[in-house]
Every structure is written in C-alpha cells, then in structure tokens.
C-alpha cells in the first residue's frame, strides 16, 4: 500500500502540467559560432520533443553544425537528443582555453 499510493496520486495530475506543448529556450553562441549564427543570445519557442538540431534548423537552416558541440543547461548533449525541460542551449565551437 505504501509504495502504490504515491504513484496513484502522481497519475491523477492533469497531463498539461507535466508536458506543456510550448516552451521557450535561450540559445547562446560563443567564439566562431557567434559569427556563424550572427547573434550572441536569442530566445525562441520550442517543444519538449524538439532536439537542438531541429531548433537550429528552424532559425538558421543554412548554418552547418559540423565541428560544433551542443550543451543543454550546461551539460554537453547530442544534437538529436530531445531538449526536455532545458532552458538554455549553448552552441560550443572547438574550445581553446588555457
């Protein structure tokens, strides 16, 4: 009973609260990628099942993503992974710190 009850409660929540269909994400660009995309920061509408690639294709269909990595909320991810609830998408050209 103890383990069943919390699960039952969770499934009673309205669907719209757990998977909103419209989100916003802020795209950040750095170094050479800033020149490629022509902006440093832009906030766009998106859906949780969008991937970084689908979002970038909508706003810059001509830009090549080759040699670029992508991070969601400060963690590297795959260009084709769903963005889920991420609020920030960072485009990371080859790094050269030090």
């Amino acid at each position, binding site marked *: 009973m103890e383990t069943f009850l919390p699960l039952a409660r969770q499934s009673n929540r309205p669907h719209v609260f757990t998977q909103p269909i419209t989100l916003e994400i802020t795209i950040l660009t*750095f170094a*050479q990628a*800033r020149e490629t995309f022509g902006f440093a920061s832009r906030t766009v509408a998106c859906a949780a099942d969008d991937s970084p690639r689908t979002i970038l294709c909508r706003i810059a269909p001509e830009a090549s993503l080759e040699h670029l990595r992508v*991070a969601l909320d*400060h963690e590297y991810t795959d260009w084709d992974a769903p963005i889920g609830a991420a609020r920030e998408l960072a485009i990371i050209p080859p790094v050269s*710190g*030090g």
Partner: protein
Amino acid sequence: MDIHIHFTTEPIVIPPAHLPSREIGAALEFHGIVRELENGRALSGLFYEAHEPMARRRLEQHLAEIDALHPCAEVHFIHRLGWVPVGEASLYIRVLSAHRGEGLALLAAVVDRLKQDVPIWKLADPPKPAQ
C-alpha cells in the same frame, strides 16, 4: 579535495597560500602565459571568452574525476577572460598534495582536459558586437 574556481577580467592575483594540513608535501603552480607567436602570427595579446557557468561545472566534474585517480588536497584554478597582453598570465593553477606525483599528474590532466572540453576560447581579436 578543496576546489576553488575563479574567472576574472583583471590581471590574475595569486591567492595567498595556506597549507590546509601538516601533510602537504608538494605545492605546484602553473602559469599559462600569452605568447607573442600564435600559429606563426605575431600578436600583442589574446582575447578570452567563456561560457562561465558551464566552464565552472565542467571543471568541477573533471577535477572530481582526476582527483579520484590522483588524490590531492586543494586546487586553485583561475582563468583570465577578456583581453590578455603578451607576457601576462591567462591561467593560474595551484595544486597542493601530499606527494609530488599526484600533484603533477592532476595538474597535467586538468590542463589537458581544459584544452579539450571546457567552454573557454581564445580569439586573436576581440569579438565584433553582435545583435
């Protein structure tokens, strides 16, 4: 391991050294200095930029991984951002450890990973203003 990560647009000021215990046998310091020649071009300096919160998180993750392999007591990591003239330090790392082996290994590994994975960039020219 105690981890201190700091980004600054001012010249790097080396933090005072306090030994956290009587078991520290090695203190290593690394200063990465901007050189005049970069890819054969004579420069007067370099411009550094970072995705600072992500860089901090990546460094913390890498340092925790490296510390598991080469346990050290404390690391100070300072990276300068913005314009850094030739002859000034863009990077300072201090590692305190019981023995020199772990300190040297951690220092070498963190600089290697910094240059492969941490979102910091050097540019020959300051970026043009974008929209």
